[in-house]
């Protein structure tokens, strides 16, 4: 590989923001036909590095070299003209336009008098879509596509130019397993065409499946590059967080208490039906399934955000109806929602106000909010959850993902719930914070909370749960105890394959 010239090279990049050295002398290169993973915890500097590459930030020091020619990047458009394409995690598509218009946005083929050459546009687009093996055509409106297919449109954009390097930023965050396979095929295809690929992801399993080399950033510094076939998850993790990560199976069996929550034949329209399960105090029940299996909808129903169309909910053996989130909170149910920024936090508010938001009515001194009591609550949970922030006045939007998630968890723990539901507790969170949150969930159960964990990550579900409920298409397929469960039978269950001897 040493004889080849890299498709793209970054040399000694330094970028500082007031008070922070976001990138400290980072060097990085990607060869033609190579998939190079870029890993690091949230806040390690991956996004900043990519913004430097895309011309959104100017580096203070260092240079960018494309095909051995130094370039100064001033905008994403210029990066594109140099053959460097970005595929972002957050989609940036115009929903009202067709697939073809989105792909060629800004450079639609023209005929005389500036008219768009629709024929050429559609035929070129369909050719690209053919390479991606997708089930929609150039004229489809983007807004009518699923998120995964929209992601494919984003990827198709990268195929319109002679790309030298393509950067994938968490491309699989919203894809199902089947769609991932297609994506990996596309990446393989790009590879054989000699394109250099930078692959940013938190998911180890993908990294080991498709990459050739792995480079790790920590605290804005380059920590080293490993050859993928010669390393393992443990080594990478250690490089990322500076210590080992425990992802063993959950084996701790402590005493279970009474049944805190029981659900019988719960149904909500077409979203889920005939759902029955129970959760004891001191128990962690994991809900595992594909996106769209109805897990989040069950949580939202239990939290009073949706009205069930049939079935019963029993709290401590008493049948009850939950009318609203306020009602659910009253009855001792807390929900740490799936979308941290959209549903969990008011980003423009400070840490303290976010944490005490559900109980602000109860924290009163006369007619006023008792700010002293609020600060006491914040301090207590900051210490308990090890939330790293300069102080309660800090705006939540300025914290890292892991610390934001801890604020949401702290917010609901401070309500002293009987039942804690956590939906995708570690989505988009770095490995270090992830394991802290896992430990916390276990610890809460041992203190007598009834905990429901909804997750799309199998290692996570296996690690934290006492029992695992597998869902497919709005139905519970099977409930596993932690002794019965294997990766194989769990995957079968969430794919709707019911073994002969169903429990």
């Amino acid at each position, binding site marked *: 590989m040493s004889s080849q010239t890299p498709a793209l090279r970054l040399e000694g990049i330094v970028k500082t923001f007031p008070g922070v050295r976001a990138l400290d002398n980072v060097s990085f290169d990607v060869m033609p036909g190579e998939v190079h993973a870029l890993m690091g915890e949230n806040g390690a500097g991956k996004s900043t590095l990519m913004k430097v590459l895309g011309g959104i930030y100017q580096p203070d020091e260092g240079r960018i070299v494309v095909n051995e020619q130094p370039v100064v990047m001033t905008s994403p458009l210029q990066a594109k003209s140099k053959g460097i394409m970005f595929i972002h995690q957050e989609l940036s598509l115009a929903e009202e336009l067709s697939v073809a218009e989105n792909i060629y946005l800004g450079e639609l083929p023209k005929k005389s008098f500036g008219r768009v050459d629709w024929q050429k546009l559609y035929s070129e687009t369909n050719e690209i879509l053919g390479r991606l093996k997708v089930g929609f055509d150039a004229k489809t409106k983007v807004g009518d596509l699923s998120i995964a297919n929209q992601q494919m449109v984003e990827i198709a954009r990268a195929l319109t130019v002679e790309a030298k390097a393509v950067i994938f930023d968490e491309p699989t965050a919203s894809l199902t397993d089947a769609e991932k396979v297609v994506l990996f095929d596309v990446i393989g295809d790009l590879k054989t065409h000699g394109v250099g690929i930078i692959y940013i992801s938190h998911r180890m399993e993908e990294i080991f499946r498709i990459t050739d080399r792995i480079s790790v950033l920590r605290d804005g510094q380059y920590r080293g590059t490993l050859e993928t076939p010669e390393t393992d998850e443990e080594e990478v993790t250690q490089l990322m967080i500076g210590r080992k990560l425990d992802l063993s199976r959950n084996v701790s069996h402590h005493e279970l208490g009474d049944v805190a929550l029981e659900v019988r034949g719960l149904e909500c329209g077409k979203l889920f039906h005939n759902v029955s399960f129970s959760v004891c105090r001191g128990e962690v029940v994991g809900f595992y399934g594909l996106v769209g299996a109805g897990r989040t909808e069950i949580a939202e129903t239990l*939290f009073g955000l949706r009205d069930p169309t049939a079935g019963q909910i029993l709290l401590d053996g008493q049948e009850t109806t939950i009318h609203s989130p306020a009602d659910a*909170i009253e009855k001792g149910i807390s929900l740490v929602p799936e979308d941290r920024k959209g549903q969990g936090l*008011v980003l423009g508010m400070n840490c303290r*106000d976010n944490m005490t*938001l*559900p109980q602000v009515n109860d924290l009163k001194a006369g007619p006023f909010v008792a700010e002293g009591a609020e600060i006491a609550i914040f301090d207590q949970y900051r210490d308990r959850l090890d939330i790293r922030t300069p102080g309660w006045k800090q705006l939540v939007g300025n914290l890292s993902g892991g610390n934001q998630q801890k604020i949401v968890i702290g917010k609901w723990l401070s309500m002293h719930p009987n039942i804690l539901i956590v939906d995708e507790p570690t989505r988009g969170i770095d490995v270090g914070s992830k394991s802290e949150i896992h430990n916390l969930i276990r610890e809460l159960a041992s203190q007598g909370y009834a905990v429901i964990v909804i997750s799309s990550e199998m290692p996570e579900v296996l690690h934290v749960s006492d029992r695992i409920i597998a869902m497919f298409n709005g139905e519970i397929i099977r409930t596993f105890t932690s002794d019965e469960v294997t990766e194989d039978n769990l995957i079968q269950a969430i794919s709707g394959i019911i073994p002969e001897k169903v429990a």
Partner: protein
Amino acid sequence: MRPFNLSGIGGFLAKQGILVAFALFIIGFTIANERFLAPDNIMGVVRSSAILGVMALGVTFVVISGNLDLSVGSMMSFATIVVLDLHDQIGPALAIPSMYAMVLCLGAFIGFLVGYLKLNSLIVTLGMLSAIHGLTLTYSGGKNMDIADKEGTWFSMFGQSDALGIPIPILLFALVASVLGIVLAKTPFGRKVYAVGGNGTAATFSGIQRARVVFTCYLMSAFCVATAGLIQASRSLGSQNTVGQGLELEVLAAVILGGASLLGGSGTIFKTVIGVLILGFIQNGLLLVGLQFYVQYVVTWIIIILAVWLDVAAKRGKLWSPIA
């Protein structure tokens, strides 16, 4: 072209842009006309800003909750006409509470549409701007409304009297500002207003009844409008049907000038008061310098656009951003 960065003194100027611009105006006006800083002129400006100011206090709540209220101008005309008419029919002691009740009903209706039916506040209040104007004209039959006995009524105290040497309109403005300032900054309700405007979904997920919060904000806005109408009616003791016309934009201008974000979730009562005063002093200064009255419309909005620009520039650290 490379967008230049704001840091050091430039960044400070951008962040405090509105206060800096204000200071420059004051210096300029004082040089042009020394009467500008005379105590009676200052008192006059505050006094004439009081009506606009009281309305801006209520609208601050609505804006922080993430909505707009463009109906306050025509609602203020309605309040003025109604209280003047009722004054002669049932006497001032009954006229005032009746007027408040009617205006609060209008506020409740808007609050219901925006809060509970979740209709877009721009459309609803733009519609109400016109509808309430029609309501006022229907009520008055299109005629100006005057109090028969202008000398002998105590009703004139709200607009014309002094207490402790301070005009009552200023005292009313200060009183409402203090109470609402405390409500917004210190009570659970105020906290919920910020949460609903900052992220309505997260507020719902925290058990906050979003519809109720929005509804209450419109009620507070209506209460402030009724108070403004009371001052207006009491000051002139007679009124046209269009007395509040155009005020909705001036009110909004003051709120934005104070630094509240139209996206919701930020702003304070104190900042709104500053915005109101800046607007008042600038308009007064332009008159003292000898410019035509209409020039203020142009200048006011140039200042607002400048203020918003500096605010955005300070947030992104660049004066302009051609890329994204």
